[in-house]
């Protein structure tokens, strides 16, 4: 299992965006969420995005946010425990999510805003499942 995708994963989390245009696009994309429900901007950097690959250990289908917990293995085989915060259940369901869409052992690619404090957490904007299906998160 790859811990992160080269160039946009954990290694990039504490670096400034390489291209100003990209940074502007990201700000435009996520700016609308800046004051969104439950102030996740306190904990996640909405101006940046990360891509993390891992293996699901559990999936909390709960309000006000669903959570995916997953293991990320580095090149030496060390496992880091990660979490991904999603939106509210009803909006997730409208976006195609279901409570049983993930189960332990599933391999996922999580894309979203990294935690400001460097902890292994992400505010999910999109997920890619092992079968290639992509789902957007919700506010």
């Amino acid at each position, binding site marked *: 299992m790859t811990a992160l995708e080269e160039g946009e994963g954990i290694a990039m989390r504490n670096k400034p965006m390489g291209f100003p245009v990209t940074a502007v696009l990201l700000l435009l994309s996520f700016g609308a969420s800046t004051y969104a*429900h439950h*102030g996740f901007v*306190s904990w996640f950097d909405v101006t940046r995005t990360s891509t993390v690959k891992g293996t699901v250990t559990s999936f909390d289908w709960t309000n006000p946010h669903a959570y995916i917990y997953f293991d990320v293995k580095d090149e030496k085989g060390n496992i880091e425990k990660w979490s991904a915060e999603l939106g509210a259940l009803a909006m997730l369901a409208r976006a195609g999510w279901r409570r049983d869409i993930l189960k332990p052992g599933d391999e996922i690619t999580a894309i979203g805003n990294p935690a400001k404090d460097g902890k292994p957490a992400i505010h999910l904007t999109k997920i890619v499942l092992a079968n290639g299906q992509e789902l957007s998160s919700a506010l």
Partner: protein
Amino acid sequence: MRNRLIFSAAAVVAMLAFSPAPRGQDAASPGSVPDISGVWLVEKFQPVLFPKGGAPLTPWAEMKLKATNPQTDDPNLACLPEGVPRFMISVPYPMEIVQGPRRVLIIHEGTSVLRQIHMGRQHPKDLDPTYAGDSVGKWEGDTLVVDSVGFNDKTWLDGGALPHTEALHVVERIRRRDHDTLVDEFTIDDPMAYTKPISAQQVYKLKPDWEIHEYVCEENNKYTYQKK
């Protein structure tokens, strides 16, 4: 538990809203006024009322705003209701309008407050301040005019922490611009906090296939409300 009670209360109120109007009370039938019922979602999420700044703050409100961190002090972090007008403008979750002869009900998916708009009565005297306040409505042609007072001061006007006092007075003009579009024009007045009334507008799109779902914010809320 609180949400279950609220939804139970909503069911009771809905039944009352559709019960026959007693003689001497509002006798308008649903068919004689415009139909604004349905599930609606904000067309454009407006997190703040003044994205470029310039809110007409009184010195009190300016001081209050400076002392507030919008990202950590939001009462909504504790799952407290957003209140009016914030949940009508700045929350990207759907609302259902249930229209009866004596009351128009607004059930919002992302807040724990059922909003009742009472048709054909005045505001009671000596209102106890609440999150939803007291709303009364009347039809002016194709427009539902809603007058709301009786708010507590525990909410913000928007996601940017604009404060208000218990003197908050909100007037809304709600009309169905076309079959799929609802427009709500707000006049927000609070002389204690603002030097002049604030005008705002929100546009909602009809979601004919959607239903309002349960949203129990307290179930697994991991955020901490730091402003006590």
